[in-house]
């Protein structure tokens, strides 16, 4: 049974790791067999499965980090994540369904800070070895017209 404080601490760790750019730690927040989607709201609501960022295993998340850090070419930028209040939607068995808004702002060199993502996150957490982990995270974003690229995970 995962309690509120554990979930709160989990997300504190999750967002801090991303804000700090410790991307190599990111996949470990998920279960080995997981589902991760960053998907446009128009797709999500139309029942389309096409995602802007997608992973169906921790391995794919590891590959995303590798691709991002070792193969992609992009202008340097900062992302900062502003999650809204955590809402507990449901519990089934040992899993917790959590929902939360997320605002991601980006800053490029000498440019003003802008909103890159306004989204709702639909997550499912399970407990592994006493630790909460994400079995599923669906980030549904309103901001369908992306300012060029979306590089770092949400």
């Amino acid at each position, binding site marked *: 049974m995962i309690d509120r404080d554990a979930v709160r601490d989990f997300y504190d760790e999750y967002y801090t790791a991303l804000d700090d750019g410790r991307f190599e730690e990111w996949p470990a927040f998920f279960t080995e067999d997981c589902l991760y989607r*960053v998907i446009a709201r128009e797709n999500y609501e139309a029942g389309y499965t096409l995602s802007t960022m997608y992973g169906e*295993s921790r*391995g794919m998340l590891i*590959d*995303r980090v*590798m691709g991002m850090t070792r193969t992609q*070419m992009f202008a340097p930028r900062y992302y900062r994540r502003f999650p809204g209040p955590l809402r507990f939607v449901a519990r089934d068995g040992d899993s917790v369904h959590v929902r939360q808004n997320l605002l991601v702002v980006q800053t490029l060199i000498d440019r003003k800070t802008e909103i890159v993502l306004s989204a709702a996150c639909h997550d499912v957490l399970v407990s592994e070895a006493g630790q909460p982990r994400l079995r599923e995270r669906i980030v549904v974003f309103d901001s369908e*017209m992306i300012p060029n690229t979306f590089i770092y995970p949400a």
Partner: protein
Amino acid sequence: MNSINHTWPADGMGRVPYWVYSDPDIYAAEMERIWYGPHWAYCGLEAEIPKVGDFKTTTIGERPVIVTRSGPDEISVVENRCAHRGFKFCQVRKGNAKDLLCPYHQWNYSLRGDLQGAAFRRGVRGQGGMPADFDPKDHGLRKLRVAAVNGVVWATFSDDTPDFREYLGERFWQHYTRVYDGRKLEVLGYNRQHIKGNWKLMQENIKDPYHASLLHVFFVTFGLFRADQKSATEVDQTGRHGILISRRGQQEVNDVTSTMRTFRGDIKLADPRILDAVKEYPDEDAIQIMTLFPSVVLQSNLNSLSTRHIVPTGPGSFDFHWTHWGYADDTPEMRQRRMRQANLFGPAGLVSADDGEAIEMCQQGFAHSTDESAVVMMGGRETESVEHMVTEVAIRGMYRYWRETMGL
């Protein structure tokens, strides 16, 4: 275009002057001569509007249009601008309707764009109303010529545009029908990017296979796209269309990789399913990416199929709309495969993100040196198709055609 006084650099075919990417007069002329001229522009997929009354909104050049299924076997494209006072009355992306109604004064049009009714046209209880000489026939929406070809909808503002097959030319018609072979298509979803670069840079990016084997470390590293693979770069007769064809190679180290600073021999995938592509066309090609001038890129890359629609929003920016699709009869596995491979493309694409960034970096680089010019002489100065990818031939072809069309 008397306001334009630029002269093309001496080395005509080997150079592209930077003023083509930023001059507002050039841009305005492009709208008239290219986007609203004798060219077919991408509007979408038939699969987006399957039922009579279905419609979608999109943009050609800078003009908003509505694409409607106006009959069981008829698609219409009309300007999204009320004939009364110019209202862009259709504001949703998609929908279904019996007719097109402008909310401002309830002028009402058929799905073909004919004015069917105008509220109070005959006045109210004898007062007001339209003058006697008001003929609804003169007040319909602007209609575009339409071609629905194997699942893709095209439209043009011009009467001089040749029919679609002729517009492509035989050779490109073959390429087009390889993928758009008449089977029913199915939409998988959309991606949208706003890119701060001139629209032609997107065309160049895709017409330039040479960058792909150098910039895209992910591609190169996993042997998806490499200069040492069997490939071809074709240009149509006019020079405006291009296609890049490539077979898939291996993740091997050889004489060529040694010349690639970005090759990462040590990288392995933790979950290789992202690259588990299967052959789905008769030929051996892994990649065919076609640029149909001026408005779209048609991608068949591994099993990832998409149309990428270019919508200019000024000399220095454009919107880029991706429609990812599959065949209606795809197996669940195949649908899943296309989805997975989509990780390589779009605004977060492990490959395509590079291109969006590259385009902005080009615009940033040359924007304030418009008297200088780009070098496009890789593979010579010719504009004929070649059997390899170490060339900028398709870019040269496009500017050969562009200069004719623009009279520059």
